[in-house]
């Protein structure tokens, strides 16, 4: 193992070293990074007094002990690539390890000829700078993670660009796998999806760790633009190891008549912070937002969402389901914001927490801010346990108690898994969820 210079830890002195190491970064990006680094140093660390960090254990969030990642060794890289083959039917795939590209399965020549771009950011920063200068980190943080977003902008150097021109439809999913490897490694995954008018695509982000027990820091940002009439299905699977600290910010923006479906799966990290901002900017746009989280041991999974309705006649529907075991803790904080001009909005938000142990803790903060009157908005939050009647029914059919309980918990997730249109993706989510209930 290489010994790292002290300057490579995420300290003030490290940033210059980072820029020296990555001379490939274009000038416009370096300027942006310098600005973000200054912001990062300037912004206050989260405290519990901040509404956007309410209930979170903010003492867990120190990033000073992490360091810039070393390249993944070739032998390890092959094994990581091998592990990304569970989803076979894809239109394209990128595999990253410690922010370097490990493998590429490019999109078909046909798609390329139509103008579809599916590129690692490292190349795209230079080759498609006209797109990236406009869209890379163009969205503000709305849910509290400004400091970590600034850190991301400063230290990110790779990720995915997916650009789909007007009227192009891609049936099979496109996937990016992001791996982190090594003790105290910090990674900064980034995904940018731009779906032009009336295009259609399914994109999947998968986040995983090479080791089960190396503390890692993942600080990622994903942004999805759905232009008028576009249909985008976006999945993210957060499965970092359980010693890790992870931040993820997803922004999705839907223009007129666009349609977004987002599926989140939060399984990994010791402390995961996941922010999802959905912006309904065009009339007739629609967003469906689903998430499953399974927390065990002493994991903390903290999810914050905002549904911003800025245009009339739009619809959003959110369903976040959490299952908690052992000493784990979840936070769901959701807000529906309906602007004065967003009349005829339909916005819904549901959070269901299933407590499976006497010491698990579920926090729920479902919020509404409604400034228009001709709307249908509601939210519901429930926290409870396995239904006794359902359990009794299964027991009376001769099914053993542990099996019956497992079946009922799996049933709890099916409400979301059953909504996925791609069977292979649904099975991938299902397999990751079920695996978490296997004895270690």
């Amino acid at each position, binding site marked *: 193992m290489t010994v790292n210079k002290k300057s490579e830890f995420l300290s003030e002195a490290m940033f210059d070293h980072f820029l020296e190491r990555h001379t490939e970064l274009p000038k416009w990006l370096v300027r942006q990074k310098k600005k973000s680094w200054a912001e990062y140093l300037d912004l206050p660390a989260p405290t519990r*007094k*901040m*509404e956007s960090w*309410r*209930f979170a254990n903010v003492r867990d969030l120190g990033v000073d002990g992490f360091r810039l990642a070393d390249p993944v060794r070739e032998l390890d890289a092959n094994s990581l690539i091998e592990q990304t083959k569970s989803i076979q039917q894809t239109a394209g795939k990128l595999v990253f390890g410690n922010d370097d590209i490990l493998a590429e399965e490019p999109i078909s020549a046909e798609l390329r000829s139509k103008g579809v771009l599916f590129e690692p950011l490292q190349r795209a920063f230079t080759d498609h700078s006209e797109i990236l200068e406009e869209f890379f980190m163009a969205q503000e943080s709305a849910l509290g993670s400004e400091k970590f977003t600034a850190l991301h902008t400063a230290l990110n150097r790779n990720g995915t660009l997916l650009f789909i021109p007007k009227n192009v439809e891609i049936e099979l999913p496109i996937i990016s796998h992001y791996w982190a490897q090594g003790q105290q490694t910090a990674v900064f995954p980034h995904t940018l999806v731009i779906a032009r008018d009336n295009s259609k695509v399914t994109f999947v982000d998968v986040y995983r760790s090479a080791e089960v027990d190396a503390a890692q820091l993942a600080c990622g940002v994903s942004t999805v633009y759905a232009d008028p009439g576009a249909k985008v299905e976006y999945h993210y699977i957060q499965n970092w190891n359980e010693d890790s600290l992870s931040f993820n910010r997803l922004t999705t923006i839907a223009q007129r008549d666009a349609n977004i479906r987002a599926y989140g799966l939060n399984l990994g990290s010791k402390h995961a912070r996941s922010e999802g901002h959905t912006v309904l900017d065009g009339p007739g746009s629609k967003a469906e937002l689903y998430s499953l989280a399974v927390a065990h041991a002493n994991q903390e999974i903290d999810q914050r969402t905002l549904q911003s309705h800025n245009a009339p006649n739009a619809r959003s529907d959110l369903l976040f389901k959490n299952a908690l075991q052992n000493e784990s803790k979840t936070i769901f904080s959701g807000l529906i914001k309906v602007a*004065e001009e967003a*009349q005829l909005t339909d916005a819904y938000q549901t959070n269901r*927490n299933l*407590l*499976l*142990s*006497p*010491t*698990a*803790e*579920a*926090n*729920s*903060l*479902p*919020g*509404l*801010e*409604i*400034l*228009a*009157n*001709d*709307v*249908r*908005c*509601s*939210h*519901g*939050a*429930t*926290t*409870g*346990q396995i239904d006794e009647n359902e359990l009794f029914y299964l027991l009376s059919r001769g099914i053993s108690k542990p099996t019956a309980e497992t079946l009922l918990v799996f049933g709890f997730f099916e409400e979301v898994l059953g909504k996925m249109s791609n069977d292979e993706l649904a099975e991938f989510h299902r397999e990751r969820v079920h695996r978490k209930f296997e004895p270690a």
Partner: protein
Amino acid sequence: MSTQAAIDIDREKGNFSYDTTYDYDAGIGLNEGVVNYIADVKGEDDWVRDFRLKALEVFNSKPLPTNWATKDLENIDFDKFRYYLSKGQEPSRTWEDVPDDVKETFERLGIPEQERAFLAGVEAQFDSEAAYSRMKDELAKEGVIFVGSTEGLKEHPEIFKKFFGKVIPTGDNKFSALNSCVFSGGSFIYVPPGVKVQQPLQAYFRINAENFGQFERTLIIADEGAEVTYMEGCTAPKFETTTLHSAVVELVALKGAKIQYITVQNWSANVFNLVTKRGLAEEDAEIKWIDCNIGSRLTMKYPGVILKGRKARGEVVSIALAGEGQHQDTGAKMIHAADETTSNIISKSISVGEGRSTYRGQVHIPKHLQGCRNNTECDALLINANSRTDTYPAITVRGDDNSVQHEASVSKVSAEQIFYLMQRGLNEGEAMSLAVNGFVNDLVKQFPMEYSVELKRLIDLEMEGSVG
């Protein structure tokens, strides 16, 4: 209106004031001198004076809660208020002894009639002190105590000192600290074991003076198996300048006791109404807050229950009506601290014009408790295109033997409903009133009849100008 009519909650009815001379006036602004002045005038024991002075320090050290609450709080200029004004220390026991202008005030508001009609006891507070206080003789014989806070601390320290400031500590929030340093007036009630007070006890709070802050302090203790219902009403004239009302209300329901606390708040639209209300429910006890907020510029009030004993029950029923220029920031807190405790929160709000209503709730079920249940429902109705409503609940549950459910909805009166009613011959305003009354009807029924009739009438008045 019949002579049985209750406290009038018509907004105009309370809009008058008298030029009155005060015998005691602590001057303008808040400092140690003012606090000492209040303690001197009241002839308080040293422990009360120390309690006040300590609270002043806490008040000065605490920031305004603008990290989550409205920035409108910054418009309160604490240096411009008068913190203590009174005409005398001893409340009168008969209406004849009440000074004429004060008597006339309460007569215009209908207090003596109500006392004759259906109340077991009445206290009427005019600015800082109770002007009138009377309770039916048979209750006194049963050992019920119903006095002002000054009298309560002086005459019955053995009863009240034990719980005074215990349910709501001074440092709970900036405004509870403010109340703790300048409190005056309010009711101290003790109901002995097993005594069930059949008719409600009532307090009536009136602000008469301009630039005045009213800080009443209420402590109600229902001993084992006792039952009591308490009602309070509030009005103030419409001055140009702001007025501050910051009360602290503590309820203690010992084993098996029941307390029901009913508020009809109709302050004029220049009043900042920043109130802390909390109850402590022991084993098998029940505390129910019935809260109706119609008046004030800004109300921040989140009645709470600490469910301390096994099988304790807590309930908040709340109606808020936010008209033009008003912000009703209300809600509820349910802190579960024992097994098998249950709580229920039902909140309905109506926003008219640019009015804003906010629901904030906290439900807390800590670890290792079993069999706790909470149900929360909050519904908001928006009348005009520029009306606003917010909902900010916070729910924490630990353990797999507890359950909570929370539901909220936002809606407007549907065009179909209005069309149907108008097609039956109602005009638009009447149709709107009927629909809005339908929205709150199930909650209004929980108020005493006299209040619910008035509430309906007020909704009619509000709706007349709201459509078209």
